[in-house]
Protein backbone atom coordinates (compact mmCIF):
# COMPACT_ATOMS: atom_id res chain seq x y z
CA UNK A 1 0.00 0.00 0.00
CA UNK A 2 1.27 3.47 -0.89
CA UNK A 3 1.58 6.06 1.81
CA UNK A 4 -1.79 7.86 2.05
CA UNK A 5 -1.90 11.56 1.34
CA UNK A 6 -2.12 13.56 4.57
CA UNK A 7 -5.59 15.02 4.98
CA UNK A 8 -5.41 18.61 6.28
CA UNK A 9 -8.81 19.85 7.43
CA UNK A 10 -10.30 23.21 8.41
CA UNK A 11 -11.17 24.04 12.01
CA UNK A 12 -12.87 27.41 12.12
CA UNK A 13 -14.24 26.75 15.61
CA UNK A 14 -13.65 24.26 18.46
CA UNK A 15 -16.80 22.42 17.30
CA UNK A 16 -15.47 22.05 13.77
CA UNK A 17 -12.14 20.88 15.15
CA UNK A 18 -13.85 18.04 17.01
CA UNK A 19 -15.90 17.21 13.90
CA UNK A 20 -12.78 17.06 11.72
CA UNK A 21 -10.95 14.88 14.24
CA UNK A 22 -13.92 12.52 14.50
CA UNK A 23 -14.33 12.31 10.71
CA UNK A 24 -10.76 11.17 10.14
CA UNK A 25 -8.54 14.22 9.66
CA UNK A 26 -4.79 13.59 9.89
CA UNK A 27 -4.21 17.26 10.59
CA UNK A 28 -6.33 20.32 11.34
CA UNK A 29 -5.47 23.94 10.70
CA UNK A 30 -6.81 26.91 12.62
CA UNK A 31 -6.05 30.47 13.68
CA UNK A 32 -6.25 32.89 16.59
CA UNK A 33 -9.31 35.12 16.86
CA UNK A 34 -7.73 38.28 15.43
CA UNK A 35 -6.26 39.76 12.27
CA UNK A 36 -3.21 37.49 12.33
CA UNK A 37 -4.96 34.86 10.22
CA UNK A 38 -6.52 35.03 6.77
CA UNK A 39 -10.02 33.91 7.82
CA UNK A 40 -10.69 36.68 10.31
CA UNK A 41 -14.49 36.53 10.15
CA UNK A 42 -16.89 37.22 13.03
CA UNK A 43 -17.60 34.17 15.17
CA UNK A 44 -14.65 32.18 13.86
CA UNK A 45 -11.28 31.11 15.21
CA UNK A 46 -9.81 30.36 18.61
CA UNK A 47 -9.13 32.22 21.84
CA UNK A 48 -5.90 31.21 23.60
CA UNK A 49 -7.68 28.80 26.00
CA UNK A 50 -9.76 27.34 23.16
CA UNK A 51 -6.65 26.78 21.11
CA UNK A 52 -4.87 25.02 23.99
CA UNK A 53 -7.90 22.79 24.57
CA UNK A 54 -8.25 22.10 20.83
CA UNK A 55 -4.59 21.14 20.60
CA UNK A 56 -4.94 18.74 23.52
CA UNK A 57 -8.03 17.13 21.99
CA UNK A 58 -6.38 16.73 18.57
CA UNK A 59 -3.13 15.37 20.00
CA UNK A 60 -5.05 12.91 22.19
CA UNK A 61 -6.49 11.50 18.97
CA UNK A 62 -3.17 11.48 17.10
CA UNK A 63 -4.13 14.46 14.95
CA UNK A 64 -1.65 17.27 14.21
CA UNK A 65 -2.48 20.96 14.56
CA UNK A 66 -1.20 23.72 12.27
CA UNK A 67 -1.66 27.33 13.36
CA UNK A 68 -2.15 29.82 10.53
CA UNK A 69 -0.50 33.19 11.17
CA UNK A 70 -0.77 34.07 7.54
CA UNK A 71 -1.60 37.74 7.17
CA UNK A 72 1.04 40.43 6.69
CA UNK A 73 1.99 42.19 9.93
CA UNK A 74 1.17 45.87 10.04
CA UNK A 75 4.11 48.30 9.94
CA UNK A 76 5.19 49.41 13.40
CA UNK A 77 2.88 46.86 15.03
CA UNK A 78 4.54 43.43 14.93
CA UNK A 79 3.33 42.51 18.44
CA UNK A 80 0.13 40.59 17.62
CA UNK A 81 1.87 38.51 14.96
CA UNK A 82 4.95 37.77 17.08
CA UNK A 83 2.68 36.79 20.00
CA UNK A 84 0.68 34.48 17.74
CA UNK A 85 3.86 32.67 16.68
CA UNK A 86 5.21 32.63 20.26
CA UNK A 87 1.95 31.24 21.67
CA UNK A 88 1.58 28.63 18.94
CA UNK A 89 5.10 27.45 19.79
CA UNK A 90 4.45 27.51 23.54
CA UNK A 91 1.19 25.57 23.21
CA UNK A 92 2.92 22.83 21.22
CA UNK A 93 1.50 23.40 17.74
CA UNK A 94 2.95 21.00 15.19
CA UNK A 95 3.72 23.87 12.81
CA UNK A 96 2.83 27.47 12.04
CA UNK A 97 1.69 28.53 8.58
CA UNK A 98 3.28 31.85 7.59
CA UNK A 99 3.18 34.14 4.55
CA UNK A 100 5.25 37.21 5.45
CA UNK A 101 9.01 37.20 4.89
CA UNK A 102 9.65 39.31 7.99
CA UNK A 103 7.52 37.07 10.19
CA UNK A 104 9.20 33.93 8.85
CA UNK A 105 12.54 35.55 9.68
CA UNK A 106 11.30 36.26 13.22
CA UNK A 107 9.94 32.72 13.70
CA UNK A 108 13.16 31.18 12.44
CA UNK A 109 15.27 33.20 14.90
CA UNK A 110 12.93 33.16 17.92
CA UNK A 111 11.88 29.50 17.64
CA UNK A 112 14.52 27.55 15.76
CA UNK A 113 12.80 24.24 16.53
CA UNK A 114 9.33 25.33 15.42
CA UNK A 115 8.27 23.73 12.15
CA UNK A 116 7.37 26.33 9.52
CA UNK A 117 4.94 25.92 6.63
CA UNK A 118 4.59 28.48 3.88
CA UNK A 119 1.02 29.73 3.44
CA UNK A 120 -0.72 29.85 0.10
CA UNK A 121 -0.85 33.59 0.81
CA UNK A 122 2.88 33.78 0.02
CA UNK A 123 2.06 32.70 -3.56
CA UNK A 124 5.20 30.63 -4.02
CA UNK A 125 4.38 29.40 -7.52
CA UNK A 126 7.75 28.11 -8.69
CA UNK A 127 10.57 25.88 -7.48
CA UNK A 128 12.88 28.91 -7.20
CA UNK A 129 10.47 30.76 -4.98
CA UNK A 130 10.06 27.71 -2.73
CA UNK A 131 13.82 27.24 -2.58
CA UNK A 132 14.16 30.84 -1.42
CA UNK A 133 11.83 30.25 1.56
CA UNK A 134 13.48 26.92 2.32
CA UNK A 135 17.00 28.30 2.19
CA UNK A 136 16.28 31.46 4.16
CA UNK A 137 13.83 30.21 6.78
CA UNK A 138 13.98 26.42 6.71
CA UNK A 139 10.38 26.13 5.47
CA UNK A 140 9.45 22.43 5.61
CA UNK A 141 6.23 22.52 3.62
CA UNK A 142 4.64 24.85 1.10
CA UNK A 143 0.93 25.22 0.41
CA UNK A 144 0.91 25.66 -3.35
CA UNK A 145 -1.02 28.54 -4.88
CA UNK A 146 -4.04 27.58 -6.96
CA UNK A 147 -2.36 28.54 -10.24
CA UNK A 148 -0.42 25.38 -11.05
CA UNK A 149 -1.26 22.42 -13.28
CA UNK A 150 -0.63 18.87 -12.08
CA UNK A 151 2.35 18.64 -14.43
CA UNK A 152 3.83 21.80 -12.95
CA UNK A 153 3.28 20.47 -9.42
CA UNK A 154 5.06 17.23 -10.35
CA UNK A 155 7.99 19.20 -11.77
CA UNK A 156 8.25 21.27 -8.60
CA UNK A 157 8.20 18.17 -6.41
CA UNK A 158 11.12 16.71 -8.31
CA UNK A 159 13.35 19.66 -7.54
CA UNK A 160 12.51 21.09 -4.11
CA UNK A 161 13.53 19.61 -0.75
CA UNK A 162 10.19 20.67 0.71
CA UNK A 163 6.84 18.92 1.15
CA UNK A 164 3.93 20.26 -0.88
CA UNK A 165 0.32 20.63 0.20
CA UNK A 166 -2.42 21.34 -2.34
CA UNK A 167 -6.05 22.41 -2.15
CA UNK A 168 -8.52 19.70 -3.13
CA UNK A 169 -11.91 20.99 -2.12
CA UNK A 170 -13.76 24.20 -1.31
CA UNK A 171 -13.83 27.80 -2.43
CA UNK A 172 -11.78 28.60 -5.52
CA UNK A 173 -8.96 31.11 -5.58
CA UNK A 174 -9.06 32.95 -8.89
CA UNK A 175 -6.30 35.47 -8.32
CA UNK A 176 -2.82 34.54 -7.12
CA UNK A 177 -3.24 34.44 -3.35
CA UNK A 178 -1.68 37.15 -1.25
CA UNK A 179 -1.34 39.32 -4.32
CA UNK A 180 -4.90 40.57 -4.66
CA UNK A 181 -6.15 43.85 -3.23
CA UNK A 182 -9.53 43.93 -4.99
CA UNK A 183 -11.24 43.67 -1.61
CA UNK A 184 -9.40 46.63 -0.10
CA UNK A 185 -9.90 48.67 -3.25
CA UNK A 186 -13.64 48.47 -2.53
CA UNK A 187 -13.79 48.13 1.27
CA UNK A 188 -10.43 49.18 2.70
CA UNK A 189 -9.94 45.67 4.11
CA UNK A 190 -7.93 42.93 2.44
CA UNK A 191 -6.80 39.38 3.10
CA UNK A 192 -3.21 40.57 3.44
CA UNK A 193 -3.81 43.26 6.04
CA UNK A 194 -6.72 42.15 8.21
CA UNK A 195 -7.44 38.64 6.98
CA UNK A 196 -10.76 39.24 5.25
CA UNK A 197 -11.89 39.27 1.64
CA UNK A 198 -15.13 41.01 0.71
CA UNK A 199 -15.97 41.46 4.44
CA UNK A 200 -19.58 40.95 5.63
CA UNK A 201 -19.56 44.42 7.20
CA UNK A 202 -19.56 45.91 3.68
CA UNK A 203 -22.13 43.54 2.14
CA UNK A 204 -25.69 44.58 1.56
CA UNK A 205 -28.60 43.32 -0.48
CA UNK A 206 -31.22 45.52 -2.10
CA UNK A 207 -34.54 44.38 -3.48
CA UNK A 208 -35.48 45.88 -6.84
CA UNK A 209 -38.86 44.52 -7.83
CA UNK A 210 -38.42 40.76 -8.13
CA UNK A 211 -34.65 41.06 -8.40
CA UNK A 212 -32.13 41.04 -5.60
CA UNK A 213 -29.02 43.18 -5.95
CA UNK A 214 -25.90 42.18 -4.01
CA UNK A 215 -23.41 44.91 -3.26
CA UNK A 216 -20.00 45.19 -1.74
CA UNK A 217 -19.31 48.75 -0.65
CA UNK A 218 -20.68 51.00 -3.38
CA UNK A 219 -20.41 48.43 -6.16
CA UNK A 220 -23.03 46.03 -7.49
CA UNK A 221 -21.44 42.59 -7.59
CA UNK A 222 -24.42 40.64 -8.88
CA UNK A 223 -28.15 40.79 -9.58
CA UNK A 224 -30.28 37.70 -9.02
CA UNK A 225 -33.63 36.87 -10.58
CA UNK A 226 -36.40 35.32 -8.46
CA UNK A 227 -35.44 31.80 -9.57
CA UNK A 228 -31.67 32.15 -9.08
CA UNK A 229 -29.74 31.07 -5.99
CA UNK A 230 -28.32 34.15 -4.26
CA UNK A 231 -24.55 34.14 -3.83
CA UNK A 232 -22.29 36.04 -1.48
CA UNK A 233 -20.77 39.08 -3.20
CA UNK A 234 -17.14 37.98 -3.33
CA UNK A 235 -15.68 40.37 -5.89
CA UNK A 236 -14.03 37.83 -8.17
CA UNK A 237 -17.23 35.73 -8.29
CA UNK A 238 -19.43 38.59 -9.44
CA UNK A 239 -21.20 39.26 -12.72
CA UNK A 240 -19.89 42.19 -14.73
CA UNK A 241 -20.09 43.65 -18.21
CA UNK A 242 -17.10 43.53 -20.55
CA UNK A 243 -17.07 43.90 -24.35
CA UNK A 244 -20.84 44.48 -24.19
CA UNK A 245 -21.45 41.05 -22.66
CA UNK A 246 -22.55 40.17 -19.14
CA UNK A 247 -20.67 37.29 -17.58
CA UNK A 248 -18.92 35.90 -14.56
CA UNK A 249 -15.73 37.18 -16.14
CA UNK A 250 -13.33 36.00 -13.44
CA UNK A 251 -15.02 32.72 -12.53
CA UNK A 252 -18.42 31.12 -12.53
CA UNK A 253 -19.98 30.33 -9.16
CA UNK A 254 -18.22 27.05 -8.64
CA UNK A 255 -16.11 25.16 -6.15
CA UNK A 256 -12.89 23.27 -6.42
CA UNK A 257 -13.27 19.50 -6.23
CA UNK A 258 -10.21 17.46 -7.15
CA UNK A 259 -11.33 14.22 -5.51
CA UNK A 260 -11.06 12.36 -8.83
CA UNK A 261 -7.44 13.46 -9.14
CA UNK A 262 -6.08 11.85 -5.97
CA UNK A 263 -4.07 9.18 -7.83
CA UNK A 264 -2.56 11.87 -10.07
CA UNK A 265 -1.70 14.02 -7.06
CA UNK A 266 0.00 11.03 -5.42
CA UNK A 267 1.99 10.38 -8.59
CA UNK A 268 2.94 14.06 -8.69
CA UNK A 269 4.66 13.66 -5.33
CA UNK A 270 2.25 15.75 -3.26
CA UNK A 271 2.43 15.14 0.52
CA UNK A 272 -0.80 16.63 1.81
CA UNK A 273 -4.29 17.62 0.69
CA UNK A 274 -5.96 20.72 2.04
CA UNK A 275 -9.70 21.13 2.40
CA UNK A 276 -10.72 24.80 2.38
CA UNK A 277 -13.51 26.01 4.67
CA UNK A 278 -12.71 27.40 8.10
CA UNK A 279 -15.87 29.48 7.68
CA UNK A 280 -17.97 26.31 7.32
CA UNK A 281 -20.03 24.58 10.01
CA UNK A 282 -19.68 21.24 11.71
CA UNK A 283 -21.99 19.29 9.37
CA UNK A 284 -20.08 20.42 6.29
CA UNK A 285 -16.72 19.58 7.84
CA UNK A 286 -17.91 16.12 8.97
CA UNK A 287 -19.29 15.26 5.56
CA UNK A 288 -16.39 16.50 3.43
CA UNK A 289 -13.67 15.13 5.72
CA UNK A 290 -15.40 11.76 5.89
CA UNK A 291 -15.69 11.50 2.09
CA UNK A 292 -12.05 12.47 1.60
CA UNK A 293 -10.86 10.08 4.35
CA UNK A 294 -12.38 7.15 2.47
CA UNK A 295 -11.10 8.41 -0.88
CA UNK A 296 -7.54 9.00 0.36
CA UNK A 297 -7.37 5.53 1.90
CA UNK A 298 -8.80 3.91 -1.24
CA UNK A 299 -6.29 5.75 -3.41
CA UNK A 300 -3.43 4.59 -1.17
CA UNK A 301 -4.59 0.97 -1.56
CA UNK A 302 -4.81 1.47 -5.32
CA UNK A 303 -8.55 0.82 -5.26
CA UNK A 304 -11.24 2.60 -7.21
CA UNK A 305 -12.33 5.79 -5.49
CA UNK A 306 -15.68 5.63 -3.71
CA UNK A 307 -18.09 7.75 -5.67
CA UNK A 308 -19.50 10.40 -3.42
CA UNK A 309 -21.53 13.29 -4.56
CA UNK A 310 -20.29 16.36 -2.77
CA UNK A 311 -22.12 18.61 -5.15
CA UNK A 312 -24.79 19.62 -2.67
CA UNK A 313 -22.03 21.18 -0.60
CA UNK A 314 -20.44 23.17 -3.40
CA UNK A 315 -21.04 26.74 -4.37
CA UNK A 316 -23.60 27.14 -7.13
CA UNK A 317 -23.83 23.33 -7.16
CA UNK A 318 -21.05 23.12 -9.70
CA UNK A 319 -17.51 21.86 -9.52
CA UNK A 320 -14.19 22.46 -11.23
CA UNK A 321 -10.69 21.10 -11.04
CA UNK A 322 -9.49 24.69 -11.48
CA UNK A 323 -5.91 25.35 -12.51
CA UNK A 324 -4.93 21.67 -12.18
CA UNK A 325 -6.11 21.32 -15.77
CA UNK A 326 -4.67 23.79 -18.23
CA UNK A 327 -8.07 24.19 -19.90
CA UNK A 328 -9.03 26.43 -16.96
CA UNK A 329 -6.29 29.04 -17.58
Amino acid at each position, binding site marked *: MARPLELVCPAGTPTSLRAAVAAGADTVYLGFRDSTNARNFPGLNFSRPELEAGLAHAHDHGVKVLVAVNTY*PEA*DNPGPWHRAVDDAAAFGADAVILADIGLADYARRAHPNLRLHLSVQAS*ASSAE*SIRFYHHEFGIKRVVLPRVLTIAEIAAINQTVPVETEVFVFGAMGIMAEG*RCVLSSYVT*GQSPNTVGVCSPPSHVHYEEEGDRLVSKLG*DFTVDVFGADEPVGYPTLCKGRFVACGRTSHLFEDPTSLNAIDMLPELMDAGVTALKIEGRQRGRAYVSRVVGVFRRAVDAAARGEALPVADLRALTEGQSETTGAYRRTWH
Partner: protein
Amino acid sequence: MLFNWPAEKWCDFYFRIADEAPVDTVCVGEVVCLKRWSFFEPFVTDVVERLQSAGKEVVRSTLSLIMDARDLESVRAISVDESHLVEVNDVAALTLLAGRPFATGPMVNVYNEGTLEFLERRGAKRISLPVELPRASLAALAGRSKAELEVHVFGRLPLAISVRCFHARAHGLHKDGCQFVCGEDADGMSLTTLDGTAFLRVNGTQTLSDTYANLVCELDELRAMGIGRFRLSPQDVDMVAVARTFRDVLAGSREPQAALDDLAQLAPGIAFSNGFFHGIEGVGRVGPLARAE
Protein backbone atom coordinates in the same frame (compact mmCIF):
# COMPACT_ATOMS: atom_id res chain seq x y z
CA MET B 1 4.37 49.95 -18.99
CA LEU B 2 1.79 47.30 -18.20
CA PHE B 3 -0.20 47.20 -21.44
CA ASN B 4 0.16 45.42 -24.76
CA TRP B 5 0.61 48.35 -27.11
CA PRO B 6 1.60 47.91 -30.76
CA ALA B 7 5.40 47.72 -30.87
CA GLU B 8 5.71 50.99 -32.76
CA LYS B 9 3.61 52.84 -30.23
CA TRP B 10 5.55 51.16 -27.42
CA CYS B 11 8.88 52.32 -28.87
CA ASP B 12 7.62 55.82 -29.59
CA PHE B 13 6.40 56.08 -26.03
CA TYR B 14 9.83 55.31 -24.58
CA PHE B 15 11.63 57.49 -27.14
CA ARG B 16 9.43 60.41 -26.24
CA ILE B 17 9.95 59.76 -22.53
CA ALA B 18 13.71 59.70 -23.20
CA ASP B 19 13.65 62.96 -25.11
CA GLU B 20 11.07 64.98 -23.24
CA ALA B 21 9.96 63.64 -19.86
CA PRO B 22 11.59 65.02 -16.72
CA VAL B 23 11.88 61.62 -15.00
CA ASP B 24 14.96 60.08 -13.39
CA THR B 25 14.25 56.40 -13.90
CA VAL B 26 12.39 54.35 -16.48
CA CYS B 27 11.35 50.72 -15.93
CA VAL B 28 11.46 48.60 -19.08
CA GLY B 29 10.24 45.04 -19.35
CA GLU B 30 7.23 42.73 -19.39
CA VAL B 31 5.49 42.48 -16.04
CA VAL B 32 2.19 40.79 -16.95
CA CYS B 33 2.46 38.15 -19.69
CA LEU B 34 5.57 36.73 -21.28
CA LYS B 35 3.69 35.86 -24.49
CA ARG B 36 3.60 39.53 -25.44
CA TRP B 37 7.27 40.12 -24.87
CA SER B 38 8.34 38.74 -28.24
CA PHE B 39 6.73 41.81 -29.86
CA PHE B 40 8.87 44.21 -27.86
CA GLU B 41 12.09 42.30 -27.40
CA PRO B 42 13.60 43.25 -30.79
CA PHE B 43 13.41 46.91 -29.80
CA VAL B 44 14.63 46.75 -26.21
CA THR B 45 18.29 47.47 -26.94
CA ASP B 46 17.38 50.60 -28.89
CA VAL B 47 14.93 51.76 -26.25
CA VAL B 48 17.39 51.24 -23.40
CA GLU B 49 20.18 53.01 -25.27
CA ARG B 50 17.98 55.95 -26.12
CA LEU B 51 16.86 56.28 -22.51
CA GLN B 52 20.39 56.01 -21.15
CA SER B 53 21.86 58.47 -23.60
CA ALA B 54 19.16 60.90 -22.50
CA GLY B 55 20.48 60.50 -18.94
CA LYS B 56 17.72 58.26 -17.60
CA GLU B 57 18.46 55.38 -15.29
CA VAL B 58 16.97 52.19 -16.76
CA VAL B 59 15.58 49.53 -14.44
CA ARG B 60 14.71 46.18 -15.97
CA SER B 61 11.29 44.93 -14.87
CA THR B 62 10.47 41.25 -14.54
CA LEU B 63 7.32 39.13 -14.50
CA SER B 64 4.94 39.40 -11.57
CA LEU B 65 3.88 35.73 -11.64
CA ILE B 66 6.72 33.31 -12.27
CA MET B 67 5.65 29.69 -12.71
CA ASP B 68 7.72 27.74 -15.16
CA ALA B 69 11.18 27.45 -16.68
CA ARG B 70 10.38 29.89 -19.47
CA ASP B 71 9.25 32.54 -17.03
CA LEU B 72 12.37 32.04 -15.00
CA GLU B 73 14.60 32.10 -18.05
CA SER B 74 13.21 35.53 -18.91
CA VAL B 75 14.45 36.80 -15.54
CA ARG B 76 17.79 35.05 -15.93
CA ALA B 77 18.29 36.63 -19.34
CA ILE B 78 17.70 40.08 -17.89
CA SER B 79 19.89 39.40 -14.86
CA VAL B 80 23.05 38.54 -16.80
CA ASP B 81 23.53 42.18 -17.71
CA GLU B 82 24.70 43.63 -14.43
CA SER B 83 24.70 47.22 -15.69
CA HIS B 84 20.98 47.61 -14.86
CA LEU B 85 19.16 47.35 -11.60
CA VAL B 86 16.56 44.55 -11.87
CA GLU B 87 13.09 45.03 -10.39
CA VAL B 88 11.86 41.86 -8.71
CA ASN B 89 8.11 41.34 -9.01
CA ASP B 90 7.99 37.72 -7.83
CA VAL B 91 10.07 36.30 -4.98
CA ALA B 92 11.42 33.63 -7.36
CA ALA B 93 13.62 36.29 -8.96
CA LEU B 94 15.44 36.86 -5.66
CA THR B 95 17.26 33.56 -5.94
CA LEU B 96 18.69 34.63 -9.29
CA LEU B 97 19.89 37.94 -7.93
CA ALA B 98 21.64 36.59 -4.84
CA GLY B 99 24.55 38.78 -3.83
CA ARG B 100 23.51 41.62 -6.11
CA PRO B 101 21.67 44.86 -5.50
CA PHE B 102 18.07 44.77 -6.68
CA ALA B 103 14.78 46.66 -6.56
CA THR B 104 11.35 45.28 -5.71
CA GLY B 105 8.11 46.28 -7.40
CA PRO B 106 4.73 46.96 -5.81
CA MET B 107 3.58 43.32 -6.24
CA VAL B 108 6.23 42.11 -3.76
CA ASN B 109 4.67 42.16 -0.31
CA VAL B 110 6.64 44.57 1.84
CA TYR B 111 4.14 45.48 4.54
CA ASN B 112 6.38 45.92 7.56
CA GLU B 113 9.85 46.66 8.87
CA GLY B 114 10.66 42.97 9.37
CA THR B 115 10.33 42.27 5.65
CA LEU B 116 11.91 45.59 4.71
CA GLU B 117 15.00 44.92 6.82
CA PHE B 118 15.30 41.34 5.61
CA LEU B 119 15.25 42.47 1.97
CA GLU B 120 17.73 45.25 2.70
CA ARG B 121 20.13 42.68 4.14
CA ARG B 122 19.66 40.66 0.95
CA GLY B 123 20.62 43.64 -1.21
CA ALA B 124 17.41 45.59 -1.84
CA LYS B 125 18.43 49.08 -2.88
CA ARG B 126 14.98 50.28 -3.75
CA ILE B 127 11.53 49.17 -2.72
CA SER B 128 8.30 50.16 -4.42
CA LEU B 129 5.71 49.69 -1.70
CA PRO B 130 2.39 47.83 -2.05
CA VAL B 131 -0.35 50.12 -3.31
CA GLU B 132 -2.74 49.42 -0.41
CA LEU B 133 -0.44 50.77 2.32
CA PRO B 134 -1.93 53.71 4.24
CA ARG B 135 -0.06 56.85 5.27
CA ALA B 136 0.82 55.50 8.76
CA SER B 137 2.51 52.40 7.33
CA LEU B 138 4.37 54.41 4.69
CA ALA B 139 5.64 56.78 7.38
CA ALA B 140 6.68 53.91 9.66
CA LEU B 141 8.61 52.20 6.88
CA ALA B 142 10.17 55.43 5.65
CA GLY B 143 11.43 56.06 9.18
CA ARG B 144 13.34 52.76 9.28
CA SER B 145 14.41 52.30 5.70
CA LYS B 146 17.94 52.25 4.37
CA ALA B 147 16.71 51.38 0.89
CA GLU B 148 15.11 54.09 -1.22
CA LEU B 149 11.32 53.84 -0.99
CA GLU B 150 8.94 54.45 -3.85
CA VAL B 151 5.18 55.00 -3.93
CA HIS B 152 2.76 54.64 -6.86
CA VAL B 153 1.41 58.18 -7.32
CA PHE B 154 -0.23 58.09 -10.74
CA GLY B 155 -2.08 55.58 -12.88
CA ARG B 156 -4.40 52.63 -12.58
CA LEU B 157 -3.67 50.54 -9.51
CA PRO B 158 -2.47 46.99 -10.10
CA LEU B 159 -4.97 45.08 -7.94
CA ALA B 160 -4.49 41.41 -8.81
CA ILE B 161 -2.67 38.89 -10.97
CA SER B 162 -3.96 35.49 -12.03
CA VAL B 163 -2.85 32.56 -14.12
CA ARG B 164 -6.13 32.88 -15.99
CA CYS B 165 -6.37 35.36 -18.87
CA PHE B 166 -9.57 37.35 -18.46
CA HIS B 167 -9.02 39.20 -21.71
CA ALA B 168 -9.04 35.91 -23.62
CA ARG B 169 -12.00 34.70 -21.56
CA ALA B 170 -14.01 37.85 -22.36
CA HIS B 171 -13.49 37.09 -26.05
CA GLY B 172 -14.45 33.44 -25.67
CA LEU B 173 -10.85 32.32 -26.18
CA HIS B 174 -8.41 30.22 -24.18
CA LYS B 175 -5.14 31.71 -23.00
CA ASP B 176 -3.14 29.39 -25.27
CA GLY B 177 -5.01 30.68 -28.32
CA CYS B 178 -5.56 34.22 -27.11
CA GLN B 179 -4.91 35.99 -30.45
CA PHE B 180 -3.38 38.73 -28.29
CA VAL B 181 -6.77 40.36 -27.81
CA CYS B 182 -5.29 42.34 -24.89
CA GLY B 183 -3.73 44.50 -27.62
CA GLU B 184 -7.18 45.89 -28.43
CA ASP B 185 -7.34 47.86 -25.18
CA ALA B 186 -4.46 50.30 -24.83
CA ASP B 187 -5.66 51.41 -21.40
CA GLY B 188 -7.15 48.10 -20.26
CA MET B 189 -10.53 46.50 -21.01
CA SER B 190 -13.31 48.25 -19.16
CA LEU B 191 -15.32 46.17 -16.71
CA THR B 192 -18.54 47.74 -15.50
CA THR B 193 -21.02 46.62 -12.88
CA LEU B 194 -24.50 45.48 -13.91
CA ASP B 195 -25.83 48.95 -13.11
CA GLY B 196 -23.31 50.52 -15.47
CA THR B 197 -20.71 51.82 -13.02
CA ALA B 198 -17.12 51.73 -14.28
CA PHE B 199 -15.27 49.40 -11.90
CA LEU B 200 -12.11 47.66 -13.08
CA ARG B 201 -9.81 47.30 -16.06
CA VAL B 202 -8.57 43.99 -17.32
CA ASN B 203 -5.10 43.69 -18.81
CA GLY B 204 -4.69 40.04 -19.75
CA THR B 205 -4.05 38.15 -16.52
CA GLN B 206 -3.86 41.38 -14.54
CA THR B 207 -6.74 43.30 -12.97
CA LEU B 208 -6.37 47.05 -12.48
CA SER B 209 -8.52 49.78 -11.00
CA ASP B 210 -10.74 51.80 -13.30
CA THR B 211 -9.63 54.91 -11.43
CA TYR B 212 -6.20 56.40 -11.82
CA ALA B 213 -4.50 56.71 -8.46
CA ASN B 214 -3.44 60.33 -8.09
CA LEU B 215 -1.35 61.49 -5.14
CA VAL B 216 -0.27 64.82 -6.60
CA CYS B 217 -1.77 66.57 -3.57
CA GLU B 218 0.05 64.20 -1.19
CA LEU B 219 3.55 64.62 -2.67
CA ASP B 220 4.70 67.08 -0.02
CA GLU B 221 3.56 64.80 2.77
CA LEU B 222 5.20 61.77 1.17
CA ARG B 223 8.44 63.70 0.82
CA ALA B 224 8.26 64.90 4.42
CA MET B 225 8.01 61.26 5.54
CA GLY B 226 11.23 60.48 3.73
CA ILE B 227 9.83 58.90 0.61
CA GLY B 228 11.90 60.10 -2.29
CA ARG B 229 10.68 58.25 -5.35
CA PHE B 230 7.33 58.64 -7.05
CA ARG B 231 6.09 56.09 -9.55
CA LEU B 232 4.04 57.15 -12.57
CA SER B 233 2.39 54.15 -14.19
CA PRO B 234 2.01 54.76 -17.93
CA GLN B 235 -1.52 55.11 -19.24
CA ASP B 236 -2.76 55.93 -22.70
CA VAL B 237 -2.56 59.67 -22.05
CA ASP B 238 0.17 62.27 -22.55
CA MET B 239 2.62 60.85 -20.00
CA VAL B 240 5.25 63.48 -20.78
CA ALA B 241 2.81 66.15 -19.70
CA VAL B 242 1.86 64.09 -16.66
CA ALA B 243 5.54 63.76 -15.69
CA ARG B 244 6.07 67.50 -16.14
CA THR B 245 3.11 68.22 -13.92
CA PHE B 246 4.44 66.05 -11.10
CA ARG B 247 7.94 67.48 -11.56
CA ASP B 248 6.59 71.03 -11.34
CA VAL B 249 4.83 70.26 -8.07
CA LEU B 250 7.99 68.69 -6.64
CA ALA B 251 9.98 71.73 -7.75
CA GLY B 252 7.47 74.02 -6.06
CA SER B 253 6.64 75.79 -9.31
CA ARG B 254 3.04 74.54 -9.49
CA GLU B 255 0.47 74.36 -6.71
CA PRO B 256 -0.97 70.86 -6.15
CA GLN B 257 -4.52 72.08 -6.68
CA ALA B 258 -3.61 73.60 -10.05
CA ALA B 259 -1.69 70.44 -10.94
CA LEU B 260 -4.78 68.40 -10.13
CA ASP B 261 -6.74 70.50 -12.61
CA ASP B 262 -4.00 69.98 -15.19
CA LEU B 263 -4.07 66.21 -14.69
CA ALA B 264 -7.87 66.15 -15.00
CA GLN B 265 -7.50 67.85 -18.37
CA LEU B 266 -4.79 65.43 -19.45
CA ALA B 267 -6.98 62.43 -18.55
CA PRO B 268 -10.47 63.47 -19.62
CA GLY B 269 -13.27 61.29 -18.33
CA ILE B 270 -10.98 59.51 -15.88
CA ALA B 271 -11.86 59.34 -12.20
CA PHE B 272 -8.99 59.74 -9.76
CA SER B 273 -8.57 58.02 -6.40
CA ASN B 274 -6.35 58.37 -3.34
CA GLY B 275 -8.20 56.26 -0.78
CA PHE B 276 -5.43 53.78 0.03
CA PHE B 277 -3.10 56.55 1.18
CA HIS B 278 -5.80 57.92 3.45
CA GLY B 279 -6.57 54.54 5.03
CA ILE B 280 -9.95 54.00 3.39
CA GLU B 281 -11.05 51.95 0.38
CA GLY B 282 -8.63 52.44 -2.50
CA VAL B 283 -11.31 53.77 -4.83
CA GLY B 284 -12.08 56.54 -2.34
CA ARG B 285 -11.33 60.22 -2.76
CA VAL B 286 -10.16 62.44 0.08
CA GLY B 287 -9.30 66.13 0.26
CA PRO B 288 -8.89 68.11 -2.97
CA LEU B 289 -9.70 65.00 -5.01
CA ALA B 290 -13.10 64.71 -3.36
CA ARG B 291 -13.78 68.39 -3.87
CA ALA B 292 -12.79 68.14 -7.54
CA GLU B 293 -15.71 65.80 -8.24
